[in-house]
């Protein structure tokens, strides 16, 4: 493989994959996308949120799961970092704590793929109490 050094090289890669992408992209429906937010404040980073994010990005891509992984600030659960908020299509967001690689694997397998809840959820649904 030739080395990628400039934007021109990047454009070449883009052209190479553009046709492949079209096939894949057709299956994308925003309402079916899993949304994943990784807590990336000081507390998260110090506990390894970068590695967690990397794992999610690579693993979901490997398994061809339609998901968008983004960053978010501190959710106030610094003791449980890295924290990850997952929103399955049509469902309420769920926050998981202490998400290292092993935990992330479990979350993908059990929660994202089968929809079953796993241990380690941080309950944050305070609005039901108020109402």
């Amino acid at each position: 493989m030739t080395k990628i050094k400039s934007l021109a090289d990047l454009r070449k890669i883009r052209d190479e994959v553009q046709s492949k992408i079209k096939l894949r992209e057709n299956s994308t429906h925003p309402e079916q996308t899993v949304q994943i937010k990784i807590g990336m404040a000081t507390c998260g980073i110090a506990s390894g949120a970068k590695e967690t994010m990397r794992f999610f990005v690579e693993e979901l891509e490997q398994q061809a799961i339609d998901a968008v992984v983004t960053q978010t600030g501190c959710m106030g659960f610094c003791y449980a970092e890295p924290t990850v908020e997952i929103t399955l299509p049509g469902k309420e967001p769920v926050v998981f704590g202490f998400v290292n690689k092993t935990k992330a694997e479990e979350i993908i397998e059990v929660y994202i793929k089968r929809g079953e809840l796993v241990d380690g959820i941080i309950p944050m649904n305070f609005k039901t109490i108020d109402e």
Partner: protein
Amino acid sequence: MKTITDHILDIVQNSIRANATLIEIIVEENKKNDFYSLIISDNGCGMDEETLKKAANPFFTSRKTRGVGLGLSLLKQNAEMAGGNFSLYSVVNKGTEVKASFQLSNVDRPPLGDVWNMFYYTMIGNETIDFHYIHKTENGTIEIQSEEIKRSLEGVSLRQKEIREAILELIQNNLKEIKATN
């Protein structure tokens, strides 16, 4: 924070919360002068003088979710531990600049780390913000701009596997070319 990259990842979040649209990260190293510096500047909402004075205090934060703010204080500590300095400049509604310098050869200077991952994750996490990463060594200067990358992709998603790998490789190769110290 174990690496300079971790600090960047962290401080950049401050700029994002300050509604910045342009964030510039400059790492400069000079073996001859035994100098290493990190500058992060943004065009966000800035801070008034009073806030600026308190910003590097670990017990000050603008957040409501928790009572401490360690990001800047940890960077300050690391810089001072490694024979360097830390300073902050800010103008309300103009932006903020964070500057940390280190002694390059100091054992306490954190290594650079995986800047390419930091750049990519920050870019996909905040697609509306333009990030510039500039790295200067005695062998040359590289500049990577997220807007420019997005423009050359012409609508192809940043999240495509091949594109991700290409972007990471692009940054790594460029760093190698100017012989950036880790």
